[in-house]
C-alpha cells in the first residue's frame, strides 16, 4: 500500500480546497482565483499520472491492480459505516482524463471569461466541480459516490445558472438540478435497498464488498415479492441515477437547456466529465449489473444490461435525429453528446466495460475540443450562437477551423486516423456480435450516419460560404456574452490562451484512437487486466473487418450527404430556410423543437405536480381547517343556544311566576275592602253553599 494509494484523497481535496480558499478570500483578485484553480488542478493531474504509473507498474509486475483504502466514518447501532477510496485501472484512466481535460478547460476559460466580473466565483465553482467529480471517480463506497454525485449536481446547477440575472439561465439551472434529482432519488432508493440486502455499501472490502462474488451471489438468490431478482432491481435503480445524470432518453430534457451556461462549463461538465459520470457509474458497478443467474460462460446479458443497451441505443438514435434540425451551435453539440452517451451506454450493455469506457475517453477529448472550438467561434462572433448568422469563418479563424474540423471528423468516426472511428467501431462490432438482437447495431449505424450528416451541416454552416454576420448584429448585444466585445467588427481568431488547448486536444483526438485498435488493444486489456500482444491478424478475425468497412462507408455517405445539402451552395441570408429542411418542413420544425418533449413534460408532470400541490393546499385550507372551523362554530352555536335558553326561558319564567303571585295577592286583597256588609254577604254565600253541599251529600 504505497504512498499514492494512501493519499489518493488528495486528488479531489486539492481542487475543493482551492475552491474554498477562493470563496473565502476577501480580495477579489482574478490572478489568485485562476492560479489557485489551475495550480490545484495541475497538482491533481500530476498525482493522477503518478497513480496511473503505479497501476501500470502493478500490472506489469503481475500483482492485482485493485487497491483499496477504507476508513470508519460514524457508528450507528453496533456497526460502523465505513468509507474509502480505491485505485484500479478504471479509476486511473478516468483520473488522468478528467484532470487533463479539466486543466485544459481551466486554462481555456481564463481567456474566455476574462471580461466577466464574477471571474472568481466562476473558478471557485469550477474547482469545486472538479473536486466533486474526482471524488465520484475514486470513491470505494456507493454512499460516498452518491454524496459526490449530488455535489456534482449542485455545481452543475450553480454553473448553468452562472449568469443568474438571465432568467432563462436560472430556469435551466433549476431544471437541470430537478431532472437529475429525479434520477438521484431513485438512485438513493437503490442504495438504501442495496444496503438493506447486502449489509455494506463498499465496492471492494477484501471479500466483503458488495461487488465481490459472495455479496453478488447472495443478491442473485434473493427475489422480491413481485418476482424480480433483487440484483436486477437494484441495478435498474442505480441505472436510473445514471440516466438522470447522463441525460439518457426519458431524463434528457435538461442537457440542451444546460447550454445556457458559459461554454467552458458546457465543455467541461456537459461534454467531458459530468455526463460521463453516469456511464462511469454503470462501469463501476458492472459486476452487479452484469450479474445474472445464467451459466457463467454464456454471455447472456442480464436484464439490467439489456435495459442499458436498449435505452442507450434508443437515445443514440433519438439524439442524432434531433441534432439534425438544431440551429444553435451549442445545442447541436448538446444533442450530439446525448447521442454519443447513448452509444457509450450501448457499448457497456453489449461489449462490457472496456468498450464503453474507450468510447467515453475518446469522446471526452474530441467533444470538449468541439465545445471549446464552438466557444472560440462564439467568442469571435462576439456572442452570436445561431449558425445561420455565421458562415465563412474558415478563412477568418484558421486555427479554430482546423482544430474544429479534426474534432468533427473524430466525432463522426472518419476511418483509420481519428479516435472516434476506433472507439465507435468497437461498439458497433460488439453490437453486431450481440446475441440478443441486431436492432441496436442498426440503430447505432443509422445514428453514425446522422452524426456525420449533422456535424458536416454544422461545419459547412459555420465555416463555409460567405459571412452572414450582418452589421446590425453588433448592437444586438447578447445579454450573457457581452464580455467578448472587441473594437474590430468582423470575427477574428481567439487569443493563444484559447487556441493552444484546442491544438492539444485535437492532437489527442487524433492519437488516442491508436491505443485501442483491434490490432493492439492496449486500452481494453488495461481495463480488463488481460495481457496484451500486438497481432495484426485481429482485423480479419471475428467479423471485425466487415464492420469497419461498413462503418467507414456509412461515415463517408453521411459526409457527402452533408456536403451535397450544405457544402455545395451554403445559404446566403440568415433567414433563408435550411436546405435539408426544405425537403419536409413540418418534420424539420418538429425536430427543431426536440419533438416537443419539453412541452409534453411540461403538460404532464409539471402540471400534475402543480395540480397536486394546489389540491393539498386546498385540502389544508378547506378540509382540515374546515373540520376545525365546524368544531369551533358548533361550540359557539351551543354557547349562543345556552345563552338564549338562559335569558329567555329560565329568567322570564321566574319573572312570570313572581308577577302572577303579586297579581293574585292584589286580587285577594280586594276582598278585604273594609265593607263589613261585604264580609257578611260572603259568609251568607258560604252558608248557602255549605247547606246545599250538605243536602246534596245527605240526599245521595
Amino acid at each position, binding site marked *: 500500500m504505497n504512498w499514492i494509494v494512501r493519499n489518493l484523497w488528495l486528488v479531489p481535496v486539492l481542487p475543493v480546497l482551492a475552491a474554498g480558499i477562493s470563496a473565502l478570500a476577501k480580495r477579489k483578485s482574478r490572478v489568485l482565483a485562476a492560479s489557485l484553480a489551475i495550480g490545484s488542478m495541475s497538482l491533481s493531474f500530476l498525482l493522477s499520472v503518478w497513480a496511473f504509473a503505479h497501476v501500470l507498474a502493478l500490472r506489469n509486475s503481475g500483482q492485482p491492480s485493485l487497491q483499496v483504502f477504507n476508513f470508519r466514518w*460514524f*457508528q*450507528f447501532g453496533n456497526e460502523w459505516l465505513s468509507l474509502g477510496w480505491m485505485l484500479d485501472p478504471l479509476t486511473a484512466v478516468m483520473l488522468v482524463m478528467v484532470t487533463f481535460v479539466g486543466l485544459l478547460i481551466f486554462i481555456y476559460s481564463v481567456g474566455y471569461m476574462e471580461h466577466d466580473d464574477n471571474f472568481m466565483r466562476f473558478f471557485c465553482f469550477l474547482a469545486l466541480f472538479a473536486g466533486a467529480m474526482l471524488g465520484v471517480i475514486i470513491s470505494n463506497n456507493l*454512499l460516498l459516490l452518491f454524496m459526490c454525485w*449530488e*455535489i456534482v449536481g449542485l455545481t452543475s446547477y450553480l454553473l448553468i445558472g452562472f449568469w*443568474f440575472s438571465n432568467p432563462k439561465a436560472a430556469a435551466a439551472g433549476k431544471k437541470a438540478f430537478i431532472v437529475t434529482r429525479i434520477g438521484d432519488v431513485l438512485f438513493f432508493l437503490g442504495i438504501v435497498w442495496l444496503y438493506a440486502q447486502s449489509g455494506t455499501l463498499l465496492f471492494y472490502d477484501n471479500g466483503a464488498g458488495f461487488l465481490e462474488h459472495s455479496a453478488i451471489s447472495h443478491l442473485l438468490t434473493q427475489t422480491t415479492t413481485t418476482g424480480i431478482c433483487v440484483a436486477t432491481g437494484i441495478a435498474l435503480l442505480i441505472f436510473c441515477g445514471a440516466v438522470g445524470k447522463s441525460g439518457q432518453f426519458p431524463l434528457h430534457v435538461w442537457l440542451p437547456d444546460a447550454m445556457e451556461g458559459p461554454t467552458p462549463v458546457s465543455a467541461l461538465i456537459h461534454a467531458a466529465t459530468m455526463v460521463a459520470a453516469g456511464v462511469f457509474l454503470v462501469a463501476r458497478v458492472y459486476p452487479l449489473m452484469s450479474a445474472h443467474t445464467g451459466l457463467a460462460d454464456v454471455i447472456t446479458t442480464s436484464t439490467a444490461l439489456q435495459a442499458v443497451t436498449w435505452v442507450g441505443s434508443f437515445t443514440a438514435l433519438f439524439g442524432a435525429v434531433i441534432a439534425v434540425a438544431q440551429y444553435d451551435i451549442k445545442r447541436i453539440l448538446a444533442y450530439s453528446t446525448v447521442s454519443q452517451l447513448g452509444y457509450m451506454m450501448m457499448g457497456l450493455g453489449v461489449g462490457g466495460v472496456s468498450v464503453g469506457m474507450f468510447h467515453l475517453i475518446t469522446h471526452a477529448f474530441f467533444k470538449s475540443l468541439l465545445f471549446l472550438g464552438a466557444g472560440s467561434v462564439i467568442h469571435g462572433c462576439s456572442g452570436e450562437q445561431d449558425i445561420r448568422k455565421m458562415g465563412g469563418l474558415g478563412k477568418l479563424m484558421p486555427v479554430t477551423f482546423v482544430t474544429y474540423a479534426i474534432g468533427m471528423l473524430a466525432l463522426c468516426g472518419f476511418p483509420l486516423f481519428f479516435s472516434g472511428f476506433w472507439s465507435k467501431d468497437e461498439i458497433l462490432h460488439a453490437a453486431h456480435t450481440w446475441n440478443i438482437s441486431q436492432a441496436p447495431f442498426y440503430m447505432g449505424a443509422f445514428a453514425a450516419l446522422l452524426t456525420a450528416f449533422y456535424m458536416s451541416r454544422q461545419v459547412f454552416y459555420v465555416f463555409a460560404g460567405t459571412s452572414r454576420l450582418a452589421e446590425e448584429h453588433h448592437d444586438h448585444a447578447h445579454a450573457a456574452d457581452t464580455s467578448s466585445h472587441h473594437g474590430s467588427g468582423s470575427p477574428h481568431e481567439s487569443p493563444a490562451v484559447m487556441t493552444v488547448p484546442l491544438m492539444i486536444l485535437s492532437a489527442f483526438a487524433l492519437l488516442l484512437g491508436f491505443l485501442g485498435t483491434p490490432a493492439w488493444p492496449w486500452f481494453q486489456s488495461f481495463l480488463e487486466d488481460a495481457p496484451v500482444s500486438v497481432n495484426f491478424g485481429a482485423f480479419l478475425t471475428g467479423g471485425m473487418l466487415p464492420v469497419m468497412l461498413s462503418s467507414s462507408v456509412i461515415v463517408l455517405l453521411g459526409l457527402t450527404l452533408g456536403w451535397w445539402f450544405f457544402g455545395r451552395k451554403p445559404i446566403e441570408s440568415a433567414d433563408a430556410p435550411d436546405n435539408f429542411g426544405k425537403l419536409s418542413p413540418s418534420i424539420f420544425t418538429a425536430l427543431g423543437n426536440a419533438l416537443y418533449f419539453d412541452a409534453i413534460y411540461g403538460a404532464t408532470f409539471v402540471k400534475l405536480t402543480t395540480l397536486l400541490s*394546489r389540491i393539498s*393546499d386546498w385540502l389544508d385550507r378547506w378540509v382540515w381547517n374546515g373540520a*376545525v372551523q365546524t368544531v369551533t362554530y358548533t361550540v359557539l352555536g351551543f354557547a349562543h343556544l345556552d345563552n338564549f335558553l338562559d335569558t329567555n326561558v329560565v329568567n322570564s319564567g321566574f319573572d312570570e311566576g313572581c308577577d302572577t303571585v303579586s297579581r293574585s295577592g292584589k286580587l285577594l286583597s280586594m276582598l278585604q275592602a273594609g265593607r263589613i256588609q261585604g264580609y257578611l254577604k260572603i259568609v251568607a254565600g258560604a252558608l248557602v253553599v255549605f247547606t246545599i253541599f250538605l243536602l246534596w251529600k245527605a240526599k245521595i
Partner: protein
Amino acid sequence: MITFPWISTLTIVPVVGAIVLLAFGSRNKVLVRWIALAFSFLALVLTLALWHQFNPLADGYQFQELHAWIPALNAEYRVGIDGLGLLMLLLTSIVVPIGMLASWQIQQRVSLYFALVLLLQACLVGTFTALNFFHWFIYWELGLIPAFFLIKLWGGPKSAKAAMQFLVYTMVGSIAMLMSFLAIYLATKTFDFTELAHLAQSGKLMPAVVSTLGWHLFTPAHTAMVIFLGVFLGFAVKVPLIPFHTWLPSAYSEAPTGTTILLTGAMSKMGLYGFLRIVLPLFGVQMQQVLTPLLWLAVATVVLSAYAALAQTDLKRIFAYSSINHLGYCMLGIFAVVKFTGGDAALTAQKFAAMNGVYLQMFNHGLTAATVFWFIAMLEKRSGGLRGLNDFGGLRKAMPVFTGLMGIALFSSLGLPGLNGFIGEFLIFKGSFPLVTWATASSAIGLLLTAVFILGVLQRVFYGPLGEKWVHLPDLTLGERLTLVPLIGLMFALGLYPQFILGVVNHTAIQMALNLRNF
C-alpha cells in the same frame, strides 16, 4: 451524595433571567437584549458542560435528581437525561440564542418579549429532562403560555386568531393525553416513566389499566387502544401529523420570526421527544396493532406537506410546511422502529439505524430550520416586512454573501450530502426501508418535492433580473456574519463528521430500540 444539581440549575437559569428582565423593565432596550442573550449563553455553557461530562456508554439516565414532591399522589420531582435528552437540551440552548438574535429589532415591550422567551426555554428544558409525568405535563402545558403570548402580542395582522387556534388545538390534545394518563395512574398508582416502561415491557400495564377501568362495552384490546389514542392525539397534534397540523402554518407565519425560530427549532421537537420517551415504551403493542394506518399518516405528512409547500407564496408558510415534511421523516423512522421483528438480528440493526437517524434528523432540522427562518427574518427586516416569493428577484446581485450563506442553509434543508441534512435522512431511509418498504419508497417523493420547492424559492428570490427597488439592499453586516459563521460551520461539521452527535446518542438509541424488542 451531594452532587451538583445540574439539570435543576439549567431549568432555573432562564427563569431567573426572566425575572431579572421583568424587574429590569424596558428602560434601556439594548441592555435588556444583551442581558437576555447573556442568560441564554449561560444556559448554553451549562449544556456544553453537561455534554462534556456525559458518559455516552452508561445505561439509563445520568445527572439524576429525585425529591419527593407530593407523596400522596406519588408525584416526585425526578429529572435525568440520557443521550436523547442531552441532544434536545443542546438543540434548545442553540436555538434560543438564535431566536433572540433574530428578534433584535422588536421595539415594543422588549423586556416582556425576552422574559417570555426565557420562560419558554425553561419549559423546554423542563420537558426534555422530566422523568415523572406529573411535572413533565406541567412543563408541557406551561410551555404553551409564553408561546401563545409571543405569537399574539408581537405577531402579524391575523396573529390573534392564529395564536388562539394554536393554543386550543394543543390544549385539546393535551387533555386527551391527560385523560389517558389518569387512567394509567389509577391502575398503577405511579407517574414515573421508568416504572411505567418496566410495567409495559412485562405486559402488565395494559391489563391493569383495563381491569381498573372496567369498561364493559369495550373489549380489553379496544380499551387499551382508546388509552393509546388519547396519548397519541396529544403528541400527534404537537409533532404535527397531517390531519392535526392546520394550526402550524398560520402560527408560524403570523408569529414574529424570532418566535417562529423557537417554535420550529425546539417546540416541534417536544412532540417527537414525547413519542420517543413516552409512547414508544408504553404503547409499543398498541402501535404495532395499528401500524399500517400510522404509516399512512406518516407518508401523508411527508408527501402532502411537500406538495402544499409548493403551492405557497409566503416564504414563512413554505418553510412551515417544509418543517412538517422533515418531521414526517422522523415519524416514519419512529413507526418503522415499532414494527415487530421478533428479535431478528439484522432487522434490529436496522432499527438502531432508524432510531439514530430520527435523533440526527431532529437535531439537524432544528438547527437548519432555525437558521433558514433567521435568514427570512433578516430579509424581512431589510425589505420592511415583505416576505412574499414574488416580492423579490435577483437579490444575488445586491447581496451576494447573504445569498451564499442562505443558499447553504437551504441546500442543507434540501438534504444535500456534505451538509447536516443528508445523514439523518439517509439513516432513516436506510433503517426503515427493510422494515416498512412501501412507506419508505413512497415518502422518497418528498425528497424530490423538497428540492423542487427550495429551488423554486432560490430561483424566484435570488436569481433572475434584480428588481430596481432592491438595488441598494445592504448585505450582511459583520455582526450578522460572525453569528452565522458558527452555525454554518456546525452544518458542515455535522455533514462531514456526524460522529460528534452519534457518538453520544448511539447508546441511547440501542437501549430504546432494544426495550421494544422483547415482546
